[in-house]
């Protein structure tokens, strides 16, 4: 009796410690989830914090006198004259209207650096398009210089403002007060391709490139993936060849994506002589990469179609192929589509293999077809993020937001499709 009560005593005494351990263990679990969710939150907050200014552009609106004497230009249609003309002179003159005291050559140069570097060519293009504007006064909106733009967007950050001289800072403050420098929605971001100047760079080229690439990927990966899944689930005999194919698919799903870039480089470019940097090539490489994902999810969808459907169709005399094509595949289609959309979202965010097949080139024009040189959104983000200028970092975060928006839309579509179309048996 005493022995038992002594044991019970030991157990009772240890209970407190054991419950404490229990609580601690539970706390670790909560902590782990908290860490994961907090990092997701920090990631989003960081990108939005860095990138929201990318959706804003800084402009300087000036009354420019397109004086022919100032520009040394009588005839804007004459290419020889144009090459000798000074198109930035009227801009500096217009700025001087605001600051008559800035008269020395050095001060003029400083004034000129408030405006983006492409401003002069903007005036040239305007005069080429409308030669009769020569000697007239025009109110033109110029993109501000990258440093001015950063200074205007982050007035409190001393790290950014030191890039302007104190005098320039005074000028900018004054122009801001007068309303000459203004900020507005950055429509350039969605209407241009890449540029050397942050104020002129946009993501449209990359979006179109991504779209073209994804179309090629979808056109290859979806039919092939579904066909492969149908074969493996419905027709494949139990033999060595089938096993070998299955092992291959499972392994391909785990091959690092950069290896697919090597494949594209050596086989598609090296062996078949395909052109570099084009959406067709990128789409083919990404299609091979996403195939395993699509095959695996399509197989799961086919598996979930109950055998009673097949048996009923066979019972009324359908051939095996008719059973599959008329009944199984249509019923499995929502699941297949969901898997494919998720696979496509993965492909949309993929960067590494595209670096190797030349889709990192600096491309200004928006691609017009499958065989035009192009870049894609994630690669554009990579290029901008590796640039040292603050303006490009901003653009990279803005582009990340655009990319994430596309991915969220795709995933939401997949979820909606699953909820809407999936049947429960």
């Amino acid at each position, binding site marked *: 009796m005493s022995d038992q009560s002594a044991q019970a005593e030991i157990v009772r005494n240890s209970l407190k410690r054991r419950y404490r351990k229990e609580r601690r263990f539970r706390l670790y679990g909560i902590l782990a989830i908290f860490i994961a969710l907090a990092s997701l939150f920090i990631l989003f907050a960081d990108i939005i914090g860095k990138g929201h200014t990318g959706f804003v552009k800084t402009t300087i609106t000036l009354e420019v006198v397109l004086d022919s004497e100032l520009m040394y230009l009588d005839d804007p249609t004459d290419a020889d004259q144009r090459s000798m003309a000074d198109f930035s002179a009227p801009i500096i003159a217009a700025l001087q209207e605001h600051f008559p005291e800035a008269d020395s050559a050095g001060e003029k140069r400083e004034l000129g650096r408030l405006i983006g570097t492409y401003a002069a060519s903007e005036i040239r293009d305007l005069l080429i398009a409308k030669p009769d504007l020569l000697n007239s006064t025009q109110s033109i909106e110029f993109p501000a210089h990258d440093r001015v733009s950063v200074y205007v967007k982050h007035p409190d950050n001393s790290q950014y403002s030191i890039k302007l001289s104190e005098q320039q800072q005074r000028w900018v403050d004054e122009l801001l007060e007068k309303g000459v420098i203004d900020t507005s929605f950055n429509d350039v971001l969605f209407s241009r391709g890449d540029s050397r100047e942050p104020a002129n760079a946009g993501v449209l080229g990359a979006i179109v490139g991504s779209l073209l690439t994804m179309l090629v990927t979808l056109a290859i990966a979806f039919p092939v993936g579904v066909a492969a899944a149908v074969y493996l689930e419905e027709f494949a005999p139990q033999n060595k060849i089938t096993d070998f194919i299955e092992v291959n698919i499972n392994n391909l799903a785990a091959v*690092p994506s950069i290896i697919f*870039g090597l494949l594209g480089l050596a086989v598609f470019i090296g062996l078949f002589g395909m052109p570099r940097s084009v959406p067709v090539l990128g789409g083919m490489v990404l299609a091979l990469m996403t195939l395993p994902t699509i095959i695996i999810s399509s197989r799961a969808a086919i598996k979930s179609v109950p055998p009673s459907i097949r048996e009923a169709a066979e019972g009324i005399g359908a051939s095996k192929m008719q059973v599959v094509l008329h009944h199984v595949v249509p019923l499995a289609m929502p699941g297949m589509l969901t898997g494919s959309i998720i696979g496509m979202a993965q492909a949309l965010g993929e*960067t590494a293999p595209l670096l190797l097949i030349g889709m990192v080139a600096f491309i200004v024009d928006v691609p017009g077809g499958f065989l035009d040189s192009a870049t894609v959104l994630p690669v554009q983000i990579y290029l901008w993020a590796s640039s040292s200028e603050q303006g490009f970092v901003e653009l990279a975060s803005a582009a990340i937001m655009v990319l994430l928006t596309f991915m969220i839309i795709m995933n939401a579509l997949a979820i909606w499709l699953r909820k809407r179309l999936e049947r429960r048996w």
Partner: protein
Amino acid sequence: MQTANLLPLVLVLAVVAYGLAYMRSRAVAAPLGGIRNLKALPVYYASRAALWCAIPALIVLAVWAGFEGKVIQGIVIATLPQDTWPESPGQASLILSQISNVAAGNLNPEFVPEHIAGAASVLEAMESQSENFKAALVLLVAVAGAGFAWTRVAPHINARLNVETTLRRIFFVCAALAVLTTAGIVFSVILETVRFFNRVPISEFLFSTSWSPQTALRADQVGSDGAFGVIPLFTGTLLISAIALLVAVPVGLLSAIYLSEYASKRVRSTAKPVMEMLAGIPTVVYGFFAALTVAPFIRDVAEMVGLQASSQSALAAGLVMGIMIVPFVSSLSDDVINAVPQTMRDGSLALGATQSETMKKVIFPAALPGIIGGILLAASRAIGETMIVVMAAGLAANLTANPLESVTTVTVQIATLLVGDQEFDSAKTLSAFALGMLLFLVTLLLNVIALKIVRKYREQYE
């Protein structure tokens, strides 16, 4: 005619063949008393005609388009005068690009040697000839296929069987594409790797401790050999992957345990998808985060404590990579933990063990093989990850175990060696393929082991 135009044209022809064969089969059936007297439905005669029209034509098109460039290049080189034949592949590609520039009109033919200008005109002629031949052949094959199918529209022929067998073969080819892809990968890395080992001995590649793949333009330049020792790259990869796993394994495992054993249904159904969002974020975004936020933060913190940290530390890349693979570890462990039979749980609880004791002493040991399999899969993913390390880890191959220093990885080197224009023949370019081969083998090995463990474990409880 260009491939881009031929492809839709063939498809249109296939549709036309479909329509014609459909009408033909109805016409054949009409005098017999309706389509019930045909061996197959009109749809099958029509589908067969479309398949006969499209498939051979597409095969011809693919083969031609795949090899015309190489064949034409070979012929053009062969037409050059004997004494100007290129001595090396590098020279050949130089001459070829010159020729194609002249042919495309980018280069004035007067500025190049006469034989190049001659070759350019040969190239131009060959290309237009090839286009014409290709278009003619493809269309001929398509029409012939459709015509043959037309003659085979007859009541006693069962077109359904033909169509079904063909479709089945097409499905098989699609499934076999996975094998072809693997073969393509193996072929592309092995070929270049062998060429690489002809220049750099395999022992140096595997055992030398310095990596600097600069090859000189002139033979007498200082440091012209370049060093191709893979050890510093591999230690760098392992260092970053180890940091990543140190983050991902505890966080992933503990959150999986909490979500499957403790959390209420509501918490589970919200926390799980949100955590899975981490897996859906593109790696370039993580790279951006690591390079522009985490790395400077770590450098500042290290400076505050009085440590020297590089602005591209292994720690930053590793931490962020760890966050990236958390959902991977957690969903795999979740599967394994849920696969442990409920009876084991009940038995342990009935003996008076607390939930955490049950977890630690009963479920975890039972699930351990599966969890290890999951960790190996996560490790293979960490080793193969490219964008985070390209953006946040450095380029200098340091042989160090200090996570605050900058290291480089196998994937970073592959990417940097192959980005941009490169000569296809230098040891520098070829070394990237050797690294790719190494990466492929290591990740393959990890995957095979992991899948074996997971599968064996699953069988145990099924």
